[in-house]
């Protein structure tokens, strides 16, 4: 590593830290709303130790809560947008329920809706609970029937029953006569989805994936089910979900399943769809927010990128089995890297398929996460399989450019994507044959046509130019049209003059426009405009600013002028169209200016007129 490393290692006292967790059981939370992010870990416990929710400040454990069961996933979310911000909630998923913690205290328990038992299992239990059947042979036979049913559809009671010895089974049946009415859905994974804003502190909802292959979205306020979608027509079991987008706008939930495939759920889909299948089991997926492409690591030692449509874009072979993956977004560098940890203890950072950084950790990664911890934005949190916690902080001066020092380029520089070349059609083949055979003739005819076109263009230009000289001299002025329109509320108006040459073949040169203001009431910002050459059928617009000037002793009548009407005698502006070398204007038009809106009259003028006082 040495001086070339881009990462600063934080010295962690390893003696009292022993974490045994899963990738989904780790979250970075601004627990106390002081912009000091804490690390929240759902610890599975080890041996005698019971599962706990551990809170770390930096590398120091500051608190823990005992959990009732093994945690399956830990997420944090905001459920209200109040000001000042409320503290975030922590949701911990267990086998059949989600516990919501607020300020480290249990706040709400959500149980998944139950499903009806399937008929054959019900039948077996009907027989089992009948005291007449409480002898060894029937129980053995019934246990066998239960045993032959698929594990997944059995209720917990049936599964527990199967695990018992015969004596225990008999005792159990003596003591309880309850039928297992319903089967609980079981949670496989959990994530969060923002509701309507991508803001860091905006409201999110909990998304739960069940063992039965359903995705359930919970309302952030009431924690009731607002959406239930089946993952796929064929039963698939989710085990990792990545939700992107906004629930109220458009969202995508990308789900990795245990059946070697990745499924997708989008807004308003009644049922999820299979996006793509992989050859081997998926270890982890990540979704890049930039283009929704999906990064997948598989047990066949590959890292692959799939487009959002499910098409494979590239594949990189890894030296060892990948064990964990996380996104490393570095905003100030504008890159999102993908960190892949290998079973050999190496950690590689990829930008696309190019490897940008490598680290050797001397220990196998179990879980890793990148984000803000404490006040430091770019912290790599690594939990190793020995239960150690490693923290690495990205140096401020780190650079992940391909040309930056300390990067060994791996592999030959290959094209990122294969070119999209359409299939050769019969038409194309025939054309290419013709081109080969009569290349000279085709080139000649093309050049001939090109020259003809150039000649035609030159002729037309020359014709228009020669005609423009004697145009005014003939005394015909019909082809030129002058129109004006006035925009604005005043005192500054915009007058757009439009000079149009309606002639079909004659151009005009040497024109200019002059404004003639009748009184001193108006100021024209640009009173003389030279008109450039006006081609046949062309028109040019000249926007000009004209301001109404108010004298110091303003007439109070001004305030009562009708806005839609006209300002009266003094409001006429003459526009003259002049031709070079002629003493008289060739065209003249009169523009009547509208009165200035009384509300727009400058305040100091109102003051001096004493108008404001007379109101009181």
């Amino acid at each position, binding site marked *: 590593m040495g001086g070339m490393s881009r990462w*600063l290692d*934080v010295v962690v006292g390893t003696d009292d830290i022993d974490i045994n967790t899963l990738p989904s059981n780790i979250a970075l939370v601004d627990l106390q709303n002081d912009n000091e992010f804490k690390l929240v870990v759902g610890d599975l416990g080890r041996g005698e130790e019971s599962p706990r929710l551990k809170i770390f400040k930096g590398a120091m454990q500051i608190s823990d809560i005992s959990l009732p069961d093994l945690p399956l996933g830990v997420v944090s979310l905001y459920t209200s947008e109040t000001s000042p911000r409320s503290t975030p909630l922590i949701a911990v998923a267990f086998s059949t329920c989600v516990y919501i913690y607020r300020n480290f205290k249990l706040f709400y328990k959500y149980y998944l809706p139950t499903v009806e038992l399937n008929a054959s299992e019900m039948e077996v239990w009907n027989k089992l609970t009948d005291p007449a059947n409480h002898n060894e042979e029937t129980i053995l036979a019934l246990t066998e029937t239960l045993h032959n049913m698929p594990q997944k559809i059995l209720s917990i009671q049936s599964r527990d029953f199967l695990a018992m010895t015969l004596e225990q089974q008999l005792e159990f049946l003596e003591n309880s006569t309850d039928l297992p009415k319903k089967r609980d859905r079981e949670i496989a994974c959990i994530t969060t989805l923002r509701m309507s804003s991508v803001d860091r502190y905006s409201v999110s909802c909990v998304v739960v994936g069940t063992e039965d292959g359903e995705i359930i979205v919970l309302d952030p306020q009431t924690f009731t089910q607002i959406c239930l979608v089946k993952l796929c027509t064929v039963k698939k079991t989710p085990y990792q979900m990545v939700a992107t987008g906004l629930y109220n706008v458009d969202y995508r939930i990308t789900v990795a399943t245990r059946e070697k495939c990745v499924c997708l759920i989008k807004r308003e889909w009644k049922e999820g769809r299979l996006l793509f299948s992989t050859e081997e089991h998926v270890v982890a997926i990540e979704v890049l927010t930039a283009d929704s492409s999906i990064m997948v690591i598989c047990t066949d030692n590959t890292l692959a990128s799939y487009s959002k449509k499910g098409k494979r874009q590239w594949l990189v072979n890894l030296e060892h089995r990948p064990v964990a993956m996380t996104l490393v977004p570095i905003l100030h560098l504008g890159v999102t890297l993908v960190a892949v940890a290998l079973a050999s203890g190496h950690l590689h950072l990829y930008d696309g398929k190019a490897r940008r950084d490598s680290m050797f950790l001397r220990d196998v990664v179990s879980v890793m996460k990148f984000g803000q911890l404490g006040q430091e934005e770019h912290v790599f949190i690594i939990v190793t399989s020995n239960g150690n916690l490693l*923290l690495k902080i990205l140096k401020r001066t780190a650079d992940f450019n391909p040309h930056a020092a300390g990067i060994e380029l791996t592999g030959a520089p290959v094209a990122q994507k294969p070119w999209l070349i359409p299939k050769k059609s019969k038409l194309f083949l025939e054309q290419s044959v013709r081109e080969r055979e009569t290349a000279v003739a085709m080139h000649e005819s093309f050049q001939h046509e090109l020259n003809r076109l150039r000649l035609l263009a030159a002729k037309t230009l020359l014709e228009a130019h020669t005609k423009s000289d004697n145009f005014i001299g003939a005394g015909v002025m019909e082809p030129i049209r002058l129109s004006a329109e006035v925009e604005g509320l005043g005192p500054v108006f915009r007058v757009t003059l439009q000079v149009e040459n309606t002639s079909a073949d004659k151009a005009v040169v040497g024109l200019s426009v002059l404004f003639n203001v009748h009184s001193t009431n108006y100021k024209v910002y640009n009173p003389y405009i030279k008109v450039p050459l006006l081609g046949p059928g062309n028109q040019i617009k000249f926007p000009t600013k004209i301001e109404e000037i108010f004298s110091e002793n303003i007439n109070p009548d001004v305030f009562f002028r009708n806005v839609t009407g006209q300002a009266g005698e003094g409001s006429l502006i003459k526009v003259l169209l002049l031709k070079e070398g002629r003493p008289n204007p060739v065209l003249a038009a009169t523009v009547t200016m509208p009165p200035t809106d009384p509300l727009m009259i400058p305040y100091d003028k109102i003051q001096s007129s004493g108008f404001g006082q007379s109101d009181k």
Partner: protein
Amino acid sequence: MGGGVTQATVLVLGLDNSGKSSLLNALRPPEQRASLTVPTVAHKQDQFQSGGVSFSAWDVSGASRMRALWERHYRYANAVIFVVDAADHLRLVVAREELELMLAHPDMFGRRVPLLVLANKSDASHALSATHVAAALGLERIADKPWHICACSALTGSGLADGIAWLARQLREQRSNK
């Protein structure tokens, strides 16, 4: 200098939220103190006197995106106060990295600029002692500058006077040697 008051420009560096502005606040006379310090943007200038030296202190922002601007001030600094949050164990490595970058900068390297390291927030729970902070920052490796570390608390003001007095003594000695 003629035995008058020595003038010195001192640069106050440190990560964001290490307590640079609070520290300068604590050095002001009681009636001028602000009741609330907010994160500094860019830099602020402040004056204070101690031990016959009139300090003109540059308080620069410690936010990570602002740290690239520190080097602008190195050239005219007569002394450096490096403030470390002794309770923020996680970012001690970041403080060390920034200190090393500062010491290696061409405008700083080889100059006998007195360096005062303040292990701030000594009153907080879990705060490291001055010796621990010195070890974590690798201060023993600094050979080209006189340095001193002391634990202090910008909130209570304890330990501050010691450090500033050392800095004033260093600066006076340097001037008299010239």
